[in-house]
């Protein structure tokens, strides 16, 4: 069973968001990593890049498939997790911890209200949400 921490917010494109002041940490959900299988490549944006709400910010590739990453917020990339680029298995093993992808300084905090709670995301994912 996929885990879905209660203290995070979730997007319909299977990213999670952790709020800390005006900066959010973004990753992909346990459900998403399990669907993808072994992750072998991550294409992450450079720090400083401006992201749009629901805009593509990178790519995640597994042995089976390639999937685009969509930003659940608009803002500026503050930091990327450079540790995982050569250790992509961290995203499979610890998607909410060591496997985080990027940190973004929020441009429009009100967008967070658009995201789902853990409870809603579980229902969404179980219904085969895309």
């Amino acid at each position: 069973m996929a885990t879905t921490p209660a203290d995070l917010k979730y997007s319909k494109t299977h990213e999670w968001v952790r709020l800390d002041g005006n900066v959010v940490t973004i990753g992909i959900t346990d459900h998403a990593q399990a669907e993808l299988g072994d992750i072998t490549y991550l294409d992450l944006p450079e720090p400083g890049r401006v992201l749009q709400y629901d805009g593509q910010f990178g790519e995640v590739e597994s042995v089976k498939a390639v999937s685009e990453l969509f930003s659940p917020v608009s803002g500026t990339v503050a930091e990327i997790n450079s540790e995982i680029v050569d250790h992509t298995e961290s995203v499979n093993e610890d998607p909410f911890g060591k496997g985080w992808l990027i940190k973004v300084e929020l441009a429009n905090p009100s967008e967070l209200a658009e995201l789902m709670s853990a409870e809603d995301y579980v229902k969404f994912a179980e219904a085969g949400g895309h």
Partner: protein
Amino acid sequence: MEELRRTPLDAVHRQTGARMVPFAGWDMPVMYSSILEEARSVRQGCGMFDISHMGRVYVEGPDALDLLQRTTTNDVNALLPGTAQYSLIANPDGGIIDDIIVYRVDAQKFLVVVNASNSDKDISWFRSHATASVEFNVVTQETAMIAVQGPRALEVASKAFRSDAVLNIGRFEFATLELEIAGCNATITACRTGYTGEDGLELIIPASMAPTLWARLHDEGAAPCGLGARDTLRIEAGYPLYGHEIDDNTSPVEALLMWAVSLTKGNFIGREPIAKLKSQKPARKLLGLKSDQRMQPRQGYTLFSNGERIGAITSGTFSPAHNITLAMAYIESSAATPGNIVQIQVRDKFVDAEIIPKKAMLQSAR
């Protein structure tokens, strides 16, 4: 849509949490937990695959040898009873209808194992070229087929069988063994063949005993592996797959599979165009590619050299032992030199890769 066929191990796969996918009309396990972990178990120890979807047909009778000589490319006459050979079924244009393994049981009896996706097509092809003195017995339904692969495969199988008999089977040899499993006596065929680049066996067993044997192999250390790992392993070993490296429009000359073609055995379907292309030199060749970039080359991706298009990827995989990617591609003969660095277009990026012989791929994957 037609209902998917299920192997005798279907319930076992579901109980162990395999992810099932449709493949060639069958519902098959693509992975149990991790494709790369499963592939690693085969390179380092022992893995097992349910390959019951592959077509299995006995071809028997006074004209069986003649039929197989005419419809397959390798020299069936060179096979001694108890040995097997990789071969191709060629069409009249010299293209490849399928790649197969031919096992010689005795002077007039052969077993042919074919790809699941081509099974009906191949068997119809054989039948349409056969005389009345050839009988066909398709045993795909009543048997299961399990591949046990890896450096520990023979040891694991002999423990599971409670018999050392499999240890005496040489490469590309097979044996019929009488086993007692769970109180039942059964006749199984054990072949020292595989599709992973590792040592191992392919076992043909009565369907009813498949779950028990699978459990025993598991207890002795064989890790269940799905089609995902099977694909990664065969790409790493440089083995072709119908629909990727070979099809009705590719020649064994281009695919560098002439070691499975005997131009001296006499006439066979496709011989003339194959011999002609061989003498002319083909315009493209199937070679391996190795890249230290993680972006995976996939079928259809374009290959460039000095900005010129020189070919296309047929298959590619991430190779976990050294975090590289390995692929195969048809490359224009003028550019198809091992050691050359070429560029693979992966979506909007260009990834450098080195051309290597297919036979050198496995070494890079270890």
